[in-house]
C-alpha cells in the first residue's frame, strides 16, 4: 500500500502523469474510484480484495481528458488496474481509444476480489470472474505491486447456469430471457460501467432512424439486450461490471460469457489478451466456419 502511494506521488510530482485513477477506501469492505491529481491526495489510494470497479472505464471519459488538458499538463494518465482490468486497457488500445504510451498501468498480483461490496472475501463470496481466472499476474504493466497468493477455491456457478440454459428448449430459453429482460428499466448502467461502451452516442440514443425502441416495453428491452451482447461479442473481456451495476439483476454475464466461449471455441480468440493479435471483429480468416451457409 505504501509503495503504491509513493509510486503515485512520484508520478504526479515528476509530472509524468497528470492524474492517477485509483481506489480509495470507503468502509471496511467497500472502496470507491478516485481520480488523484494532487500529490498530497495519494495517501488515499488503496488496493485490496474490495477494489471491484474496472477503472479502465475512466480512461476514455472526455471530461478527464479535458480537465488534464485545460490544466496544461501532460495527457498521460496512470490507472490502477487489476490484471483482468488490464485486458480492458489492452482492448481499448486495440480499438484506438487510448495509446499505450499515454497510459501508465499500475497493476498487482491478484488472487481475486469479492463478489460485491459488503461481502467478506472468501471462496463463497468470490466474484465469479475470479473462479477460473488465468491471469493472476497482469499481461501488461508499467509497475507491479502485491505478493502472489492462492485464490480461494469455488464452484463455477455461472458456467453451470449457462449449461443449464443450453439444456432448455428454445421456448424455455425465450421465456427465461424474456422474463429477465422484462425487468430492464433502460437505465443503461451496464453501458455506463462498460469500458468498451465508449461510443459518443450509443445506437440506442439514435432517433433518426430509431434503432432501438425506447418505450417502456419488452420489445425494446429485448432488442437492447441482444444488441448490447452482440456489440460486445468478441470484444468483452469479461470484467462483469455490467452485471454488478445492473440495479434489477439481469444476468448479463451469461450472455457475455456465452459469446466469449464462442469466440474461444470457434476462433481461438480471447479478448484483451494481446496487443499483437488482430481484433476478432474487423478481421477474418478464409477458413472461418462456413457451415452456417447453404
Amino acid at each position: 500500500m505504501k509503495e503504491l502511494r509513493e509510486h503515485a506521488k512520484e508520478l504526479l510530482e515528476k509530472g509524468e502523469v497528470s492524474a492517477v485513477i485509483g481506489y480509495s477506501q470507503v468502509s471496511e469492505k467497500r472502496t470507491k474510484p478516485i481520480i488523484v491529481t494532487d500529490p498530497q491526495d495519494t495517501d488515499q489510494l488503496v488496493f485490496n480484495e474490495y477494489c471491484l470497479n474496472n477503472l479502465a472505464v475512466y480512461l476514455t471519459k472526455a471530461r478527464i481528458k479535458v480537465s488534464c488538458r485545460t490544466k496544461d499538463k501532460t495527457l498521460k494518465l496512470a490507472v490502477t488496474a487489476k490484471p483482468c482490468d488490464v485486458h480492458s486497457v489492452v482492448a481499448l488500445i486495440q480499438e484506438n481509444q487510448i495509446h499505450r504510451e499515454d497510459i501508465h498501468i499500475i497493476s498487482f498480483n491478484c488472487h481475486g476480489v469479492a463478489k460485491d461490496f459488503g461481502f467478506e472475501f472468501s471462496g463463497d463470496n468470490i466474484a465469479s470472474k475470479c473462479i477460473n481466472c488465468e491471469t493472476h499476474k497482469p499481461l501488461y504493466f508499467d509497475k507491479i505491486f502485491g505478493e502472489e497468493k492462492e485464490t480461494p477455491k469455488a464452484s463455477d456457478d455461472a458456467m453451470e447456469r449457462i449449461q443449464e440454459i443450453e439444456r432448455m428448449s428454445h421456448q424455455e430459453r425465450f421465456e427465461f430471457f424474456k422474463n429477465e429482460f422484462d425487468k430492464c428499466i433502460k437505465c443503461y448502467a451496464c453501458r455506463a460501467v462498460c469500458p468498451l461502451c465508449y461510443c459518443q452516442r450509443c445506437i440506442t440514443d439514435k432517433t433518426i432512424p430509431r434503432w432501438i425502441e425506447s418505450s417502456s416495453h419488452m420489445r425494446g428491452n429485448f432488442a437492447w439486450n441482444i444488441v448490447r451482447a452482440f456489440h460486445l461479442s468478441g470484444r468483452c473481456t469479461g470484467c462483469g461490471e455490467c452485471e454488478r451495476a445492473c440495479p434489477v439483476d439481469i444476468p448479463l454475464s451469461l450472455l457475455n460469457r456465452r459469446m466469449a466461449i464462442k469466440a474461444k471455441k470457434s476462433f481461438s480468440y480471447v479478448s484483451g489478451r494481446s496487443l499483437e493479435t488482430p481484433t476478432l471483429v474487423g478481421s477474418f480468416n478464409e477458413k472461418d466456419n462456413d457451415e452456417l451457409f447453404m
Partner: protein
Amino acid sequence: MKIGVFICHCGENISSTVDCPRVAKICESYPGVEYSVDYKYMCSDPGQNLIREAIQLYKLDAIVIGSCSPHMHERTFRNAAFSAGINPFMVEIANLREHCSWVHDDIESSTLKAIELVRMAIEKVKRDKPLSKINVPVTKRVLVIGGGIAGIQAALDVANAGYEVVLVEKEPSIGGHMSQLSETFPTLDCSQCILTPRMVEVHQHPKIKLLTYSEVVKVEGFIGNFKVTIKKKARHINEDLCSGCGMCISKCPIKKKAYNSFEEDLAFRSAVYIPFSQAIPNIPVIDETVCTYFQTGKCGMCLKVCDRGAINFDQKDTVMVADIGAIIVATGYKLYDIERKSADLKYKGYGEYGYGKYRDVIDGLQFERIASASGPTSGEMKRPSDGKEPKKIVFIQCVGSRDDSKGISYCSKICCMYTAKQAMLYRHKVHDGEAYVFYMDIRAGGKMYEEFVRRAIEEDKVKYIRGRVSRIYEENGKYIVKGEDTIAGMPVEIDADMVVLATAMIPQDNAPALARTIGIPYDKYGFFNESHPKLKPVESTTAGVFLAGACQSPKDIPESVAMASAAACKTIILLSSDTLEREPVVAKVNEDLCAGCFYCQKVCPFGAVEVKDVKDINGIVYKEVAFINQGVCQGCGTCTATCLSKSIELSGFNNEEIFAEIAAL
C-alpha cells in the same frame, strides 16, 4: 413529397400473373403518392414520355417504377427522370418481373407480392436523397501483369494507342509458354518465328517499360488511380552494362546442377543463364541457389570473364511504386501436376501413368521441347531415357481434365488440338513410327480445327482409340499401355516406346495470392472471374482491372490474343477521358458521432478509410475520426454494419431507407 408510381406490364411478361391496373390503383391511395398509372411498355419511348410528362404535370419529386430488374433498366429510368428535371437517384425500381411475375403462377398471390414490393420501393424513395456523381481523375498509364502472348499483345495495343505501359514478367524473359512451343495448330507455323518479332517490338517500344524478373507485390487505390508496388528481383547483372555476349554463361563452371525450366527439365543450365537464346531482354540471371560464389564465396569466374564489368554479386532486390490507371492481368497457366507435387493436394495425381517414375512418360510441354528445333534434341525425335527414336508412341488426352475424381471437372480445351498436332509432328519426323491417341471426345471447334484433326487421322495415319487408359507399366524396355477401346468394346494393350500425357491447364500457383493482392475474385480452381460470363468477358468485377488469356480459363493462342486486344481496347476507352464518373453510392462518416475505433478501417476491403484529426478551438487535436476517401470507396457498406455507433451511412442504401423497407413489409 410527391411521388409518381409507374407500373409496367412488360407486354404480358408482368401482366400475365400480376394484375397491374390493380397494383396501380391501390398505390394511388397510398400516402405520398400523387400519381399512379400502369402502361404496356414503360421502357419504350412512349412509356418514358409518359413518365416525363407526369413528372412535369404533377410536379413529382420522386418516382417508383414497377418493372423488370433494376439491373436491366435502372439507368433508363434514371435518365428519363433526369431529363424531366428530377435527381436520377430519386428513382426506385420494384422488381415485378424477375422477382415476381416470372417466378410465381398464382395471380392473387403474385399481385399481393407486387403491391408489397412497390410499397417497399415507395417507402424507400420517400427517404432517398438527391445524389450527384463523383468525378475522379485518371492516370494514363497501364500495368500489364504477365509477358506471355496475351500480355505482349495487350501491351502493344495499349502502347500503340499512345498510352504508357508497364509490363511486369516474373521470369527473366518475356515470351511465356508460347515461346516453348514447336509449331502451332492448325497451320503448323513455327511458334517462335511468329512470336519473337512481337517480343522485340515490346522491348523497343518507346511507350513500354519492360520489367522482367519482377513481381507485383501490392496494389492500392482504385480505378484510374492505382498505386502498384513492384519488386524487381536481383539478377546480379547490371542491366545497363550487360551486352548479352554470353561469355559468363559459357565460362560458368556450374553446368549440371540446375534443370532448365524452359526446356521443361529435359536439359541442364548453368548457374548464370538466359532462359533461351531469343530471350528478351537478352540479359542473364545468376541463380543464387546453385552459384558457387553465393554458396561458398569462391569462384567468381563470370566476374573475371565479363569485360564490361556487368556482374554485380551485391545487387539487391529493388522495389518501385508506379501510378497506374488500369490493370490488365495476363498471368496465363501452367500444366497440371501429374505427380501431385502441389502442396495443397487439391488435385490427385496420376501415379498409375508412371509420370516421374518412367522418364519416357512425359507431358505435352516436354514433347513440345523435344519436337522444337531449338530444344534439347535439336528437334530430333529422341526419347529422354536413352535418346533412341521412339517407334511407337501413345498420346493420352484428358489427363486431369474432365475428371472429377482427380479434382478438375472442366475441359482444358486445347489438348485435343495440340495432341493431334503433336501426333502429326511425330509422324512427320518418324515416317515408320506408329502414333496412337486415347481420347474421350474430340473437341475441335474452331476455324480449320476439325479439318486439322481429320488430316492427322487420314493423311498422317494417327490411330485414334476412344477410351481411357487404366495403367502404364514397364516391361522389357517397353511401356505397356493398358486401356479400353470403348467403340470396339474390348481391352487394348500397346507396347509403346514413349507416352505423352495431354495434361490439364490449370492456373499459375500464385494466381489466388495475386488475385487477393489485386483484389479480384477467382473460382475454385484459381482462374480469375470475369464480370459477366457473356457480356463482360474481359472485365474483372473490380473496376479498372481487366483479364486477358488463360488466367481466366483455358484458351488457345488466337483466343488469348483476341481477349488481350479486347482488354486493351477496354483499357484505352477508360484512359481516353480525363476524369471518371462514379456512382455516388459511397459511405460517409458522421464525424461528430464517430468514436474513432477504426473497425471500419479494419474491415474496408479497399483501404478507403483514413484517419482524420478533429481539433478544438485552440487547434489541439482532441479526437481522431474515420474519414472515407470517396474516390476509393466502392460502396459495399461493410463499414456501416461494422460501425458500433452507426456513424457511417452508405448513400443510396442508408439505414433509414432500409428500415423503411423493412417497415413496409
